[in-house]
C-alpha cells in the first residue's frame, strides 16, 4: 500500500465563467503584467498551486486531459502567420509553467500527464511513487469553444491542487492510499475534481490494477 497525507487542498469551480472574468477574479494572485498573457487554465491551476507555495524540493504532478485548448484554438486560427506567443502557451504543460515561470520558482521533478478515464488514478500513482517528502498534485481544464463541440476540448472548467506528505503531521486534512486490485474501473479528472471539491470520501478502482481510498479527517 502507498499512502500520503493531505495537508492542503484548493479547488476552483468557475462554472461557465469566461476567461476575462477569471482574469479579473484571480489577478490579485499574480504578478502585475503577467496576467494579461495567461490562459484561463493557467490562471485557474496557477492560483490553486500558487497558494500551496511550491518549492524546488517538491514533486509537482500535473494532470490535464486537454490543456490550453482556447489558446490552441487561437493558435490554429493564427495560421499561416502563426503566433509565437500562442504557440508557446499552447504547449502542454503550460498551465503550471505560466505560474511557476511568473514566480521564477524552479522545481526538480515535474510530471505532466494527459489521459482519459484513468487520468486521476495515473496522476496519483506518480505522486505516491515520488521520491520527495512533499508532492503537489494539481490539474484542471479550461472550457473549450468549437473544440469542445468537436469533443477535443473540455466542456467545463475546473482546477484543483493538493499538497501531500509522507508524514501525517498535525492537522492533516485527510489521507489517501493506493492498493493493488483486480477490480476494474477508472476515475476521470472531472470526477476526481468533484470528489475533492465536495470533500467526499472515495473507495474504488481508479486505474487498471489500482484502487484508491480517500478519507477526510
Amino acid at each position, binding site marked *: 500500500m502507498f499512502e500520503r497525507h493531505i495537508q492542503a487542498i484548493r479547488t476552483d469551480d468557475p462554472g461557465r465563467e469566461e476567461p476575462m472574468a477569471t482574469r479579473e477574479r484571480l489577478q490579485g494572485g499574480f504578478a502585475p503584467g503577467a496576467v494579461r498573457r495567461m490562459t484561463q487554465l493557467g490562471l485557474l491551476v496557477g492560483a490553486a498551486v500558487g497558494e500551496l507555495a511550491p518549492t524546488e524540493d517538491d514533486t509537482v504532478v500535473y494532470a490535464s486531459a486537454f*490543456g490550453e485548448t482556447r489558446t490552441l484554438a487561437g*493558435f490554429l486560427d493564427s*495560421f499561416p502567420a502563426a503566433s509565437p506567443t500562442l504557440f508557446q502557451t499552447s504547449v502542454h504543460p503550460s498551465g503550471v509553467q505560466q505560474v511557476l515561470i511568473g514566480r521564477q520558482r524552479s522545481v*526538480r521533478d515535474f*510530471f505532466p500527464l494527459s489521459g482519459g478515464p484513468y487520468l486521476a488514478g495515473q496522476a496519483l500513482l506518480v505522486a505516491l511513487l515520488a521520491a520527495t517528502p512533499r508532492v503537489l498534485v494539481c490539474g484542471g481544464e479550461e472550457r473549450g469553444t468549437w473544440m469542445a463541440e*468537436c469533443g477535443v476540448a473540455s466542456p467545463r472548467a475546473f482546477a484543483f491542487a493538493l499538497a501531500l506528505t509522507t508524514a501525517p503531521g498535525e492537522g492533516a486534512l485527510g489521507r489517501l492510499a493506493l492498493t493493488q486490485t483486480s477490480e476494474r474501473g*477508472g476515475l476521470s479528472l472531472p470526477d476526481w475534481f468533484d470528489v475533492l471539491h465536495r470533500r467526499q470520501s472515495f473507495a474504488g478502482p481508479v486505474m*487498471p490494477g489500482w484502487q484508491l481510498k480517500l478519507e477526510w479527517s
Partner: protein
Amino acid sequence: MACDLPDSVQLAASACLTPLGDTTATLAALLRGERALQARPVLGREGGDRVPLALLPGRELDETAPPAWMDAVRTLLGAAPPAPWGDARHPVFVTSSNFGVGSLYAYRRGGDAAHLAYGAPFICVDWLRRELGWGDNVTIFSHACVSAHLGLMQAARLIRAGLAERALVFSFDFLSPFVAGGFHALKILNADWPAPYAVRATGSIGLGDGAAFAVLARDGGGLAIAAQSLHNEMFHFTANRPDGGGFAACLAPLVAAVGGSRLWIKGHGTGTLEAGRLEATAFARIFPRAPLVGWKGSLGHTLGSCGLVELALVAAALRAGRAPGTIGSTTPMMTDNVALEPFATAGYDAVLCASNAFGGAHAALLLRHV
C-alpha cells in the same frame, strides 16, 4: 530528484524509427555522417519558406486521416518483446509532445471531421492502444522534449518497487504543418541547416519524424539505467537561465553515480546558439574528459520522442562498439569537448543521455554496461 538505482533497472530492449530507417540503418547512416534533413516547405502543400525537415520515406508533411505514420509505428513495435502490454503488471507509457495535434490544423483547414479522431492526446493514444492491441494500463506523459525521460523514470520506479514485471515506454512525434509552423514562428526553424554546438552567427534547428520504444525490466539487455535526474528551471518559456544553472542543477545529482567512470555524452544539441553553448559548457565543466556528441544535425529534432530515439541509438552504438560524431557541425566549436567524428565506445564505461525542453526543462540518465 536523481535516483541512483541500487536495484538495477535494465534496458531490456529498445529500437527506433527515423527517416534514415530502423535502428541499425539509422546508426549506420549516422556513422557515415549522412544527413536526413531536407529543405521542404514549412506548411506542406500550402508552401511557405523552405526549412530543414526529415520525414519518413514517402510521407508528406500534411496530415492524413488515419495518420500515414501508423504503419511505421506498427512495424517498429513489432520488434518489441511480446508481452501482455497494458495489463496491470506490464504498464505502457506513451510520451510525446504533439501526439496528433496536427490533425486539428488539418480539420480546421479542410473541415474533414475524420481528423478529429486523433486531435487530442488521449484520444490519439487510445486509438493507438486499440490499433496495437494494448490493454487499458497506458499512462501518458506530455512534457515537450523531455517527455520520454518522464516515461522512463516512472517505468523505472514501478520496476524498482516490484509493481511491474516489465514496462514499455513508447514515444513518437511526427511532423505536421502545425508543428513546423510553430517553430518557424519562433524563428529557430529557418533556412539554415542545424549545426549543434558550432560557433556561428545565427542558430537554427531542423525537425524530424521519430518514434522509439524501450522495455525496462529487472534484467536482460546488458545495459542498466544507473541514475536519472530532472530539473525544471521555470525561468522563461523558451530561454534558459543565462548562467547555465539549470543544466548544472540537472547534472549535479548524477556526478556521484558517474564516479570515476569513463563517460561519453549524448547531448540534446538542437542547433540553437544559447542553449547549445550553455549545455556544452556545463558538460565541459562537470565532466571535462567526456566527449559530447549530438545527432540532431542529421535527424533533426524529433521533439517529444528525441530522448527515446537517441537512447535507442546510444544502446545500438554501445552494442556495435562505435558512436556517431556530431553531424552537421564544423569547427570552431563552442567548447573543446564536442566530438565531431565517430569514435570507438570500448574505452568508455557509461553514457550520459540528456534532453531539454520548453520552460527550461532538463532531463538526463546514465546508461552503463551491466
